[in-house]
């Protein structure tokens, strides 16, 4: 098992040019399991977890939009999925351990240099709105659009917090990220091999303890103002350490 943290796209240094193309027209399958954990434990909704400062929290909904999921290859990355709403809201451990599965068949065989995807949607897409998409497209989902900000909701992290540690959750929180400036591209540079007729399986694990690291939920349970995005910016900045790719 190899574990690799994602880095920001901006920090990317292109690795060795290790593309040795296989003969044309051979294809394999890539299966990705997106998994939410909290402090390495599969994350089940509606269950208490210790948070910072003696507070406890429970999650009620976790999801995100993933865009431009690609396998990297110098010059010509291989697009696996243009856009996907990855819903990580699981009410039992079995489902949480299995995660959200994405299977892409017909992926050209070869050794790739890594993987890249965005959390949210890029600015050109964010300039559109749900009504611009047909119902089969995930971006037609109005539940992932926030009209007052003219932005898609990139990532939803919702739950309840026990602010005084007395065993009852007394504060609902809904931390939704969005807006062009907070679109975040993550990249893992590690050789990934897709073989003819075979399935390559990878886990994309996101640790919500790290996602919320340093976030004062009690003070900012929701983001109300487009002019004050410090809380959701902190979340977005945490994503690179929160995500890891497990082979």
């Amino acid at each position: 098992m190899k574990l690799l943290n994602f880095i920001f796209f901006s920090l990317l240094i292109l690795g060795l040019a290790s593309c040795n193309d296989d003969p044309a027209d051979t294809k394999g399958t890539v299966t990705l399991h997106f998994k939410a954990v909290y402090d390495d434990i599969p994350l089940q909704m509606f269950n208490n977890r210790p948070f910072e400062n003696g507070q406890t929290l429970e999650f009620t909904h976790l999801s995100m939009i993933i865009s431009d999921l690609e396998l990297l290859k110098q010059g010509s990355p291989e697009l696996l999925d243009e856009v996907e709403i990855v819903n990580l809201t699981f009410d039992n451990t079995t489902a949480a351990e299995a995660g959200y599965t994405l299977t892409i068949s017909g992926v050209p065989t070869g050794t790739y240099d890594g993987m890249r995807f965005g959390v949210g949607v890029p600015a050109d897409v964010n300039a559109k709105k749900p009504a611009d998409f047909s119902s089969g497209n995930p971006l037609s989902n109005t539940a992932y659009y926030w009209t007052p900000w003219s932005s898609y909701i990139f990532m939803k992290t919702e739950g309840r917090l026990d602010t005084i540690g007395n065993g009852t959750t007394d504060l609902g929180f809904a931390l939704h990220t969005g807006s062009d400036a907070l679109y975040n591209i993550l990249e893992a540079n590690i050789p990934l091999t897709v073989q003819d007729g075979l399935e390559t399986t990878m886990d994309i694990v996101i640790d919500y303890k790290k996602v919320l690291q340093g976030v004062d939920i009690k003070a900012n349970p929701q983001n109300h103002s487009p002019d004050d995005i410090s809380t959701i910016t902190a979340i977005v900045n945490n994503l690179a350490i929160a995500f890891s790719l497990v082979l």
Partner: protein
Amino acid sequence: MMKMGLQLKTIRYAGFIGVLLVGVISCHDSIDEPQIPAGDLTDIPYNPVPYMLDVPADFPALEQPNDNPMTVDGILLGRKLFYDPLLSIDSTVSCATCHQPSLSFSDGLALSQGVNGITRRGSLSLINVGFHYSGLFWDGRAKTLEELALIPIEDPIEMGESWDSVELKLRNHDGYPADFRKAFGIENVSMVDRYLAAKAIAQFLRTLVSGQNSRYDRYLRGEILLEENEINGYLMFFNIDPSLPDAQCGHCHNAPLLSTNDYFNNGLQESPDLYSFRDPGLGAITGIAGQNGFFKPPTSRNLVFTAPYMHDGSLKTLEEVVDHYTSGGKNSPNKSSFLFNLVLTESQKSDILAFLLTLTDSTTLTNPAYQSPF
């Protein structure tokens, strides 16, 4: 008793057509004229005229199945079927009994009244139902309007009929075979069936649109101004002004349909765990316990006509609705985190109410194209 009545009717019409055609055929047999099969409809012209729906500017495109494009005659047939109690076991209940145009296609009852008692949930307004692409009914159990339109007829409480019987009634009716011919080009009476009936009803339902005549829509287009309290309500409903409290509504009742593609637990049912909801809603359909108690957020348009509110009709007035949300609702593990004590002043609550009323579009109640043809 009912069955007997039907059979009699069947024999009368079927016998009539049969005898007539046999007569014709035997008369002309000798002079070699083309034989006309029983139930032939090809004499009736089939000239389908595509219907272009006037979709409000911000709405998503209206999607129609490839095999059921809207036509003028398809919609007329659908409307007739929608208003015809012939579709129920004892000819007392039509779709419109529980979806009345004067009540924005709902019925004013907490739970609906069918041929055989009271339904398990309240009726839903059918305004803009053609744009619901992520499931129909409170629990999303029907995917398309074509699929849905088949259901009420055979629901033992709602209409209590069987489609076999309705098909016979339609085939033997003196008007419907011609209507089906005009709508779908069928060549023979025997081709009148439940699937075409459902397609026609679905076409009619897709015409029920509200999105440009309410004061809210006209305000957005810059044609009118709203009162200050209405604007306050608008700003809180959608959380547009950070200096006012967020009433949270817009997360689940999003513009332009004032609904979303998602399902939520909005705190109507108290439940200590995921398994004790009186009505599990979406969870019973998906089998996901975390979705027990989840329902579709109905549109906030035309609410003034659709009381009482919620799937169980438990909230009688819009005041009760606003109180429900501001109090945070009843507890259960998967209650949406948008439901908590909102701390709104009485005047802010009444501003929300004032805004909700700007979503009223009474032209949908009087539109002649939506009315009963009978």
